[in-house]
């Protein structure tokens, strides 16, 4: 008799389980989906989001700490102008891994993250932010 009950229980569990699974899959047909259509809608970045780096040349003192702390050595110090001994960082975005150490260690806070993530180029050199580009990264964003 217990054997019969066992079989009955097994059959019940199979049928009930199958119906539950089908119900779970059907339920979501009628729920709002959490996804968005990417190019027409975009997500909001949070405040701390680490996008492409930008340098404020009014604040930069040219100390070169950012170039020293960069683990990938993708920041290079170059003369600000010809004949001017002041230095300013240039950034190779190809090698940058957005770790944010340079931002953490910059004494005057001259280098900071923007929310720009779409920087594209046809050549590798397009991703090298020379001193003209590095001070206004926002304009480089691909729209």
């Amino acid at each position, binding site marked *: 008799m217990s054997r019969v009950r066992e079989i009955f229980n097994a059959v019940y569990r199979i049928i009930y*389980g199958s119906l539950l699974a089908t119900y779970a899959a059907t339920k979501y047909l009628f729920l709002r989906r959490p996804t968005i259509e990417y190019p027409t809608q975009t997500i909001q970045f949070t405040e701390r989001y680490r996008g492409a780096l930008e340098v404020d040349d009014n604040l930069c003192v040219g100390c070169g700490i950012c170039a020293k702390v960069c683990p990938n050595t993708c920041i290079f110090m170059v003369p600000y102008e010809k004949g001017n001994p002041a230095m300013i960082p240039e950034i190779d975005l190809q090698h940058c891994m957005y770790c944010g150490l340079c931002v953490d260690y910059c004494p005057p806070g001259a280098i900071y993250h923007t929310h720009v993530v779409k920087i594209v180029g046809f050549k590798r050199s397009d991703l090298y932010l020379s001193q003209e580009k590095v001070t206004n990264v926002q304009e480089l964003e691909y729209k």
Partner: protein
Amino acid sequence: MVNDQQTSLESKDIRTLTINVGPQHPSTHGPMDIVVTIEGETIIGADVKLGYIHRGIEKLCELRNFFQIPVYLNRLCYVSGMFWEYGFVKAVEEIMNQKVPERAEWLRVIACELTRIASHMIFFASFGADVGNLTLYSWGIRDRDRIIDVLELLSGQRMTFGYFRVGGVRYDVPVGFEDNIEKSLRYVESHLRDYERLTVENPVFIARTENIILADSSKALELGWTGPLLRATGLKRDLRRDEPYAVYDTIDFEIPTGKRGSVLDTFYVRIEEVKESIKIVRQAIKRIPSGPFQHRALLYPPPGIGYAHVEDSRGECGYMIVSDGSPKPYRVKIRSPAYVHVMSLPYILKGLKLADLYAVIGAIDPCLGEIDR
């Protein structure tokens, strides 16, 4: 994909067939090659080939300063990056005997447990895809994304966080963090019942996974397994409880265990772990004290050797760091749990069916970043 030297129809031994599962295969979760010899559908031998994304992180660490290294280590496992940063930071703190502010410890717990949920969600997702249910894949990614949103709010990045610092964490909690966490946890929690309906209560899923025994507890210990796989064999072992670090000894949580070490048990253990992690995060938010979150110190560890362990979502993440007194580590040894699990595949696959191989890989939940390092 197909082994050129020995195609099926030209094989000398006509009864067996050698199949390369990988390096490019939908179910290996990354570039990994498993050479399986099958007879009919039964596996009679297997060999694992690794190293397709070996980046030499251990060597890289020897060439970087201590403060630069944590931002590399979250690349080890890109679905549970927080743990891998934490392990290194903890090892350095042990060498330096550095005290960590209590608020930082709680923040670390929050970050780690959120990452554990996110990592287990990826496990559900990829396991679903492995056994042929792509609905689970989508659901796992959906719920993980909510958790990742919170982690982005906290650390500023979605996968490669760079949140841990020696002596604390990098940022304090942002404004409105508690509400955000609670909302995300509720979102994940509301879907957990449906995961169960689709998996551990689904008769087809049970039939598929319940009879694949990975190992019993003695064999698992012999092979050096840790984490959910060891817990699935019925051994109640969790580093958070056995070797408490951070503030885990004051937190109330259960350690779920399986019964027989089957694939179904590993799944069950992970679902329960997600529930426990949610519980831990809720407690942590309530009990987090105010105070400093970072203790800055000069990173010149004294000469010495240090070993730190963190209960990763896959097992014991361990770092052995040898310091010689310079600002760079002399040697960093990374102990990856998934490496141990994947390399024990040849010991557990014999006699299983070919279709079981994918369920086993899914249950092991390999992360090739940490395996190949």
